[in-house]
């Protein structure tokens, strides 16, 4: 049976270009980039290439890019580092109810240490309101952290406007751009953000590597204390193949972004159209305006049936998607994001996220839609809630 991968928001396959760029750094160019000898200098060249490439791709200066072990580390560093650095100035942080756990649980942890956090609500499509942010700002607000694009429903937030609102009131602005990077061609200077997190494996780069952009002139507390790596801001031996692969992948992604986005969104649009036409009693979650939604994302709630059984039925048909319900990860709570946009709790249990990629085909889209129609009908016939 053919396997169909529709979970690109979870991770992506490594691009050929990234793989080729990484290879030498596993074997012959193995030196520690902080060593003074020739091996070290060769490794350092790889790191320099990676930093320059990353900086160019996001519109930053080279010395504003700091490598981390993943997107979660970058988020932790940004939020905790800024909070700790500014705690004498104020202890109020603003974020949103739909943040990824990397930011959300970090804010929860800071609350235990005396910080106050305001979790801004979102509207029915997942948008944070600029006015709501303005109203939540206080004299002691030191940091605002709002995600660039949501990982479950793909809603792209008005980052530039939110950032301006934060700055107007003297607070720093961080954005978790883990899902946006590679799908939205942004420039950190145009956005005006002070900090931005990203992760290599979301744009056909390797896992285990991420980056934090920190604007020049801004000093935040260290998160990973240790040696002199990353200009003494983040200890730990640099993952040389990782940063090289991430840079090659982002460079590749940005160079073909318009073509790839057009193709991926054509797959998504066809899928959404078919599902909405052929299955009743469903919700299409997230931004309705395709311009304000990640091109790869489709998220549905199917009434009367439960997400995990849809997910496993798809899996049996060779289709890999993701359940909006956290049931499969051991929690019985449905998605915080879906509840926040007003999906009723019972309905939220029946949610599935499909995220398309550039290697998917229109045939795969049609096969998936065909199977999904059958699966939903079968599970509804089994459901005591479905009375038709």
């Amino acid at each position, binding site marked *: 049976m053919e396997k169909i991968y529709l979970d690109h928001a979870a991770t992506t396959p490594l691009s050929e270009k990234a793989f080729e760029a990484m290879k030498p750094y596993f074997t012959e160019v193995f030196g520690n980039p902080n060593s003074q000898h020739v091996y070290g200098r060769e490794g350092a060249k790889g790191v320099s290439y990676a930093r320059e490439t990353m900086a160019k791709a996001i519109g930053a200066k080279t010395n504003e890019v700091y490598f981390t072990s993943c997107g979660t580390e970058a988020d932790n560093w940004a939020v905790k580092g800024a909070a700790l650095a500014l705690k004498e100035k104020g202890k109020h942080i603003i974020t949103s109810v739909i943040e990824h756990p990397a930011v959300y649980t970090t804010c929860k942890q800071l609350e235990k240490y005396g910080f106050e956090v305001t979790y801004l609500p979102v509207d029915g499509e997942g948008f944070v309101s600029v006015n709501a942010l303005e109203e939540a700002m206080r004299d002691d607000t030191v940091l605002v952290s709002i995600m660039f694009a949501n990982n479950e429903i793909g809603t792209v937030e008005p980052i530039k406007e939110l950032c301006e609102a934060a700055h107007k009131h003297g607070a720093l602005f961080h954005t978790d751009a883990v899902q946006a990077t590679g799908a939205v061609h942004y420039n950190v200077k145009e956005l005006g953000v002070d900090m931005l997190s990203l992760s290599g494996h979301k744009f056909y780069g390797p896992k285990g590597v991420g980056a934090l952009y920190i604007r020049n002139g801004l000093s935040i507390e260290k998160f990973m204390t240790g040696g002199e790596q990353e200009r003494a801001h983040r200890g730990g031996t640099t993952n040389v193949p990782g940063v090289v692969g991430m840079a090659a992948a982002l460079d590749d992604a940005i160079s073909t972004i318009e073509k790839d986005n057009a193709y991926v969104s054509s797959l998504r649009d066809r899928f959404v159209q078919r599902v909405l036409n052929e299955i009743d009693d469903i919700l299409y979650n997230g931004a309705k305006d395709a311009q304000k939604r990640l091109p790869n994302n489709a998220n549905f709630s199917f009434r009367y049936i*439960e997400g995990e059984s849809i997910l*496993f039925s798809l899996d*049996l048909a060779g289709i890999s998607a993701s359940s909006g*319900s956290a049931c*499969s990860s051991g929690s019985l709570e449905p998605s915080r994001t879906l509840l926040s946009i007003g999906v009723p709790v*019972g309905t939220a249990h029946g949610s599935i996220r499909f995220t398309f990629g550039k290697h998917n085909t229109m045939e795969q889209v049609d096969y998936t839609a065909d199977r999904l129609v059958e699966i939903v009908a079968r599970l509804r016939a*089994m459901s*005591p809630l479905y009375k038709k």
Partner: protein
Amino acid sequence: MYNDKVMEVFKNPQHMGEVENYNAIGTVGNEVCGDIMQITMLIEDNVIKDAKFKTFGCAAAVASSSTATGMIIGKTVDEALKLTNKQVIEELEGLPPQKIHCSVLAEDAIREAIENYQQKNK
């Protein structure tokens, strides 16, 4: 996370639906928790002649209801009341720890259906 047996039962559940002229019905769980199980039975001369289930829930919930329903058909009411969730788990060759409650739900649904029958036939 599930073993082959659970996936097999989930793929081809038996006894799915509603017994046409049932005289016992039990529904347990709620939509908020993400699991609802309904079992209908036809009980004659204290023997469960037929039983069917309907389930809103995860793969483990479907597999548990299908298996438990199969285990009580042909049994007397007293025998069916003795069915425990542990026996359902054994029949399924194990369930992940966070899915044990699905087997409890199946046991509860059977009990609820029999109580429903006994109430009506006091």
